[in-house]
């Protein structure tokens, strides 16, 4: 038996490569779990979105963040550090951050977990695998698991 969420799952995808954004969108769309997706193409924009600053004043709070490591200015690791250090009232640090990267390098895995990433996933090399990964991810966080309640 699955519990139906009262509102769609809210996902923030931080990804600068339009090719990857489309792949992620397509893969997530095949998941049976209803969701809303916001794409931030820079780390700075992602942080603003989470803090509801600037043009993001009406932004929702993401249930999870999918974060690419290789971003143009502020790197994925810097975004991760910023989020996981946030102990302001909004407590961004409790939002689960899932690293989604093409790097299988051990040092990237280690560095991410040292910065308190909640999970580390390598981007698959074919669309079928991408769909499978999206399904597993959605099911894990929104069916089997629980994300922190919205404040």
């Amino acid at each position: 038996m699955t519990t139906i969420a009262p509102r769609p799952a809210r996902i923030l995808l931080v990804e600068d490569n339009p090719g990857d954004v489309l792949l992620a969108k397509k893969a997530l769309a095949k998941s049976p779990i209803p969701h809303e997706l916001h794409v931030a193409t820079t780390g700075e924009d992602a942080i603003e979105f989470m803090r509801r600053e600037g043009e993001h004043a009406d932004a929702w709070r993401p249930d999870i963040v999918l974060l690419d490591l290789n971003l143009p200015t502020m790197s994925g690791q810097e975004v991760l550090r910023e989020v996981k250090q946030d102990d302001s009232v909004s407590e961004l640090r409790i939002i689960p951050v899932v690293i989604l990267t093409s790097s299988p390098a051990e040092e990237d895995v280690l560095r991410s977990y040292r910065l308190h990433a909640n999970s580390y996933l390598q981007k698959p090399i074919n669309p079928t695998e991408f769909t499978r990964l999206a399904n597993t991810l959605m099911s894990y966080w929104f069916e089997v698991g629980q994300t922190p309640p919205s404040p």
Partner: protein
Amino acid sequence: MSDSNVKNELVKVQRALVMKTEELDQFAYAASHDLQEPLRMVSQYVALLEEEFFPIIEEHAEPDQAEEAKLYMHYAVDGANRMRKMLDGLLAYSRAGRLTDTFDLVPAEDVVSNAIATLNGAVRQAGATINVGTMPSIYADKHMLSRVFLNLFTNAIKFRSPDRPLLIDISAEEHPDHIEFVVKDNGVGFDQKYADRMFVIFQRLNKSVKGTGIGLSICKKVVERHGGKIWAVGAPGVGASFHFTVKKHARDFE
């Protein structure tokens, strides 16, 4: 130039060389790492093109045109896959034999048995017999050197003859200032004319067996980091023997 000037000059040149080598490794690492990303786009999107649009082509095009379209997509995906493996190999190459100071006096037998243990399954599957002669102690980085034996054994297994059970002989010969190791097999062998080409990165003499042409280039790099040389002797249909040397004493590096 006085003796001390010559020595100073030499130290300077040596230092510059070490820096250049490290820079090259960095370059290979960055290249292999960062090139994977656009490559992933190629294979992903060709696969999507096939998945989503091939049915449309199939419906509207002549059967032989549809076949041709399928072949094109296959070559594109196959090329991308091969390139990915090569980039993985480049990454492994850039990391192999990185300058470390884990050189120590180790029994060569440990290094060899370590490599054999890693290959246990493949050795058994190939029905191979491995004979290890008397092994001295050597001054080496045992993980790095174990990789050399591992690659050589893997090659012996890959290029074994279909006509006879594989036999690998490992021996060591002591010379005044170095040890010479020989890994000899009774596999398909190779034409001696091309012996040196095998050690060049991505070069492959025998394309009937899967591979990327990285293994022996890694061996060469590691052996050279140990102050030694590597070479191969072979004959088609008879077998191959790979020889490499390792300096005997730590002071030989100075």
